[in-house]
């Protein structure tokens, strides 16, 4: 039997180890972000953000990549948001459990687990080749839309669940039909939560590289996309290409850091917004 003192000593050691782990996780984030900031801020300038790449991408800006990421991301949201919210409405408002719901949930869970590169190949096989959309904003947006669908469904469901049951009962009690209740009472009340979900989805879609490699992204274009059937440059793919391909890898380092910084600011900014929004929502509910 251990003495009380040795048991407390054990606790002290264990807590120290646990604290060190948590600190390491925080440090990892700080180091990654700090490092990119430290090396990237020198590259950032107004011209870097608003000009075309020059001299086989060793100079100039990343404007087309920013625009491309913007297009792809909003395309993805435009695909995933209506389907995702409608799925969540069915699961939370209409479904009463049973086999159909189990199968649907299994589908959503597994869709969430499909590797991003597999989404990329699927997009290549289905949108690019089979539907003949070619490598384009449309194909890329659809592929990314499929990818973020589970995120949107999950957060929308959480938002719908948080709408108090009494709202629905009051609306039904006034003689509204179920659809009227959903459309005029439940969805408006769940709107902030659904918005949070979309923002999370945007963050996810903006950072993905593998799904757009074969469906939308191109190494270099001298012009901005004119239609949804054009190829685009995108920030994540731009980093990948600059860092791994070509003969100027060392020469373009500052551009790589700069692009990484822009991408990190975009993704972390968007995610942080969603996190803060959500914690405010939760606090208000409690």
């Amino acid at each position, binding site marked *: 039997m251990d003495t009380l003192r040795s048991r407390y000593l054990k*606790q002290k050691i264990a807590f120290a180890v646990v604290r060190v782990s948590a600190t390491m*996780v925080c440090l990892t984030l700080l180091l990654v972000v700090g490092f990119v900031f430290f090396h990237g801020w020198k590259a950032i300038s107004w011209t870097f953000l608003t000009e075309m790449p020059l001299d086989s991408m060793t100079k100039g800006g990343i404007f087309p990549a920013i625009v491309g990421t913007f297009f792809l991301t909003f395309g993805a949201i435009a695909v995933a948001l209506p389907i995702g919210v409608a799925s969540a409405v069915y699961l939370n408002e209409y479904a009463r459990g049973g086999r159909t719901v189990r199968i649907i949930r299994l589908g959503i869970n597994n869709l969430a687990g499909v590797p991003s590169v*597999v989404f990329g190949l699927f997009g290549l096989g*289905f949108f690019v080749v089979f539907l003949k959309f070619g490598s384009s904003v449309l194909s890329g947006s659809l592929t990314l839309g499929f990818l973020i669908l589970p995120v949107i469904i999950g957060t929308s469901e959480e938002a719908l669940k948080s709408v108090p049951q009494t709202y629905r009962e009051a609306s039904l009690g006034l003689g509204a039909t179920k659809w009227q209740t959903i459309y005029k009472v439940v969805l408006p009340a769940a709107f902030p939560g659904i918005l949070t979900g979309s923002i999370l989805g945007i963050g996810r879609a903006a*950072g993905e590289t*593998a799904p757009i490699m074969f469906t939308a992204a191109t190494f270099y274009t001298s012009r901005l996309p004119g239609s949804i059937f054009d190829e685009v440059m995108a920030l994540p793919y731009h980093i990948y290409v600059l860092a*791994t391909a070509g003969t100027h890898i060392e020469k373009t380092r500052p551009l790589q850091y700069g692009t990484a910084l822009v991408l990190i600011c975009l993704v972390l900014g968007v*995610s942080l917004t969603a996190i803060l929004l959500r914690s405010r929502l939760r606090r208000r509910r409690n």
Partner: protein
Amino acid sequence: MYQGERAIRHPGFTGSFGCDSFHGAEHTMKKTMIQVPSFESANLVDRAANADAPALGDAWTGRGGYRRRTRESAIRLIFLLTALFSITALGLILFFLFREGVPVFKIVSLQDFLLGREWYPTDDPPALGIFPLIIGSIAVITVSCIGAVPLAVLTAIFIAEIAGPRMKEILKPVVELLASLPSVVIGFIGMVVVAPFLQRTFDIPTGLNLLNASLMLGIMTVPTICSISEDAMYAVPRELREASLALGATQWETIFRVVLPASLSGIATAVILGISRAIGETMVVLMVAGGAAIVPTSLLDPVRPMPASIAAEMGEAPFQSEHYHALFAIAIVLFLITFAFNLIADQISHKYKQVGSATL
């Protein structure tokens, strides 16, 4: 109908049974509505001060009511069909992977494909054995788990059991932000920071190898494992902790002997989901694993995990060539592995769900 009747017999019943009470309320309403005309109260409603309001009786029983009910069931059907979209998407993904991947088995048997030691897809004839790629994936994930699993679980313990509320408010977003870091940025850091460091430290020709990829992959999996494990610990009932503390156990003994065992299924689910994500993680292994399709013999050997192979070669593989089909076949293998892992995780979390406080 049963729920509706029960709700009618107990008019004051407004229990918070989640969905049940909701549907109960709906049935109740329909019944009372339908009864309205028999009391001839439709006239009363018509004469009501607000002339704009639709007549209640008419809304449900008249021709308008029929239309209204048809519309309601049509809307319900539309929502059901949309909800089935996820299944459809999964089916489409499977169908197109098989459509483009299966033709490779005309020239190589399944066994040779999975166990063949040589991956020279551009040779003539091509050698299409993905064994080194599978081993590459397994090696990278095993090594990364050795570091990432304890780190993630310990961090989860800190967040769930030890940290104060303010600390929690900082740590949880940190973990979430770590999860949202784009993989291409992690890969980039691996290339420009970790690789030169490893190269200098171990005096090797290149820092892009198994160890580097494992470290970077660890950064990607820690947040997944951490946040799911933390949820699992959070779900352990307070009574269990109180009972343990009341018996004289220290806080650490309570965590280690009560909370951890009680949330073990959740932690197992977390680890499996983390591994499942790591298997499919592409950009990190594409950029820092080194890219040699060999079976590694040391931590400092370059490897070529499955997703890296797909991403690196798809751009160069001629359309509908054997190489192209082979890459789709690798994607099938990846898909099936992650599918299996997700099913296992699903099973574990359903089967060993912590219900109530008496099932330790």
